[in-house]
Structure formats: C-alpha cells, structure tokens
C-alpha cells in the first residue's frame, strides 16, 4: 500500500519561489501561467498495510501529515492511498 502526499503553501502565504517561476514562465511566452505554487511531494510505502485497510491508512496518513509532514500554519496537504 502506498500513500502519495502533496504539500503546497497556503494561499495566504506568499510563495516567493512560485513567484520567481511565474516570471520565468512568462519570459518563455507562457502568459497563461497565472500563478505558480511550489510545494513538495512525499511517497510513503505502508508495510505492513494497516489491518483496517484503506480507511485506517487514510486516518494514519492524515495524522502523519498533521504531526510532522505539513505545517498547518503555512501549508495545505492532500493525499491518495493506492492499494
């Protein structure tokens, strides 16, 4: 079982890296790149997979995000579980 987690800066947080990349995309002619947000991607192999299946995995991965992987003050997270 694998968890794939995407973490991005919250909308209320200025993302200077994203802003610099937006400018660079514009310079290359991609005017439609209106707003770039740069975050991180985390993949976790769950072994052994939780006995409670995907629902328990979701609950535990959510806790991993809240307790360590994301800082809720400045970041949003979302994830998917693949069996």
């Amino acid at each position, binding site marked *: 079982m694998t968890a794939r987690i995407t973490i991005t800066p919250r909308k209320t947080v*200025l993302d*200077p890296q994203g802003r610099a990349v937006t400018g660079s995309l514009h310079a290359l002619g991609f005017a439609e790149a209106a707003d770039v947000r740069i975050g991180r991607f985390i993949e976790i192999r769950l072994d052994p997979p939780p006995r409670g299946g995907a629902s328990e995995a979701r609950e535990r991965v959510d806790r991993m995000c809240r307790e*360590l992987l994301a800082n809720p003050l*400045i970041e949003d997270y979302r994830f998917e579980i693949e069996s």
Partner: protein
Amino acid sequence: MKVAVVVFPGSNCDHDAYWSYRHLIGVETVFAWHKEADLHGADAVVLPGGFSYGDYLRCGAIASRSPVMRAVSEFARRGGPVIGICNGFQILCESGLLPGALLRNRDLRFLCRDVYLRCESNASPFTRRLERGQTIRAHIAHGEGNYFADEQTLARLEGDGRVAFRYVSPQGGDEPEWNVNGSARAIAGVLNEGKNVLGLMPHPERMDEAILGCTDGLAILEGVLGGRRAAAGAGA
C-alpha cells in the same frame, strides 16, 4: 547557574554559545544531546543556530520532534528561560513553543550580514538588560528567517508585548529596506506567553566580545544571570 546548550546533528553554533557562556560570561555550561530527554539540571537552555537534520522537510521540523525537545518543552512550561537562536528559533516555532513560522527570505537569498534591532520588550530574562527602544547591532545568517503569523496572532503578539525585537535602521527607524528578510511587521524575535522563551533570527553570540568587532549581543546572553530588571512582568 548552569546553562545547557542543546546539540542536534547539524547544529553549528553550539560551540559558539558554549564559548559565550562558559568563557565570556563564566558560568557552568554543558551540552545536551538531542537523543536524551535530559537537560542535566540546567537553569537556562540554548537552542543554537545551524542546520539541524540538514533542514530536511522544513527548517527545525525534525529537531522539534526529538527527545530532548520534550524536556525543553517541560522546562519552558515550568517557566525556565529558553533562547532559540536562528535555527533554534525555527525549532521553537515548529515545536509550538512559539507562534508563527519562518519562511524563505522574501528575496530567496541566503543573507549573511549585519542588521540593527530595536528592543521592543525588556520583560524577559534575555532582554531585561536592554532598554525598551534601544537599538543594537546584530548579525544574521539565514535563508529562512521571514517571520510569518496570521493577522490575529500578530495583533495578539503586539498587544501582549511579545515582540522582542524588530529589524530597524542603524538609527532605529522603521524604513522597510532594513527589514531585510521580509518578516511580518519586521519582527526579528518573539516571546512566548510567559515571556521566558525567546526566539530570534540574529546571533547574539556572534557579537559578544571586542575581537568580533561588537559586543551588543552580550547583554542578551547575560540576561539569564538576572540584574537590571525584574523577570517577566516588569517593563514593557
């Protein structure tokens, strides 16, 4: 008086802090290893600068979950003085002992330079030897020192006198160009509710003896010895 300097893998200002307390100020100083939830009976704790755990995930995130931080949290809750310098400030924010977070510098550059700080509150063990409104010189070296907190938190910090230091001009003015990393309200250092925990990005231990060209930082480090002002509650 005994001071504990916490050592994480990647701390690189731990020996500077040790030197300041042991040899300049002249108090018993010990190192506390991150894997042990033991502060060796210290009366004050330093979380030094550096790149704990290689800044992996987020600056200070992994260090803030290490065993020694359980002891530091407990020590802080009982009112013990804790100073977090640079990476130590990031660790204090990640551990929840201080509010807010430290983001990438506004201009994305690592900044290694002198700055000027105005003391905004002397009601803490680390600022009681300074005058409120006093401007001091300090040194910064960080890539993630851009202080962030939501508006509500910032208003509460200001209202409770918990902004310890602000980046200002050499004359103590609020010109925005001296807020070099883009921090919210030019905040360089904050205090916890009990005012016994201080986090700040600048390094007082880099400006505390004549050979370093400036001794302004000494007053901050020496504050734990007491003196001039009463502890929390007095002053601003």
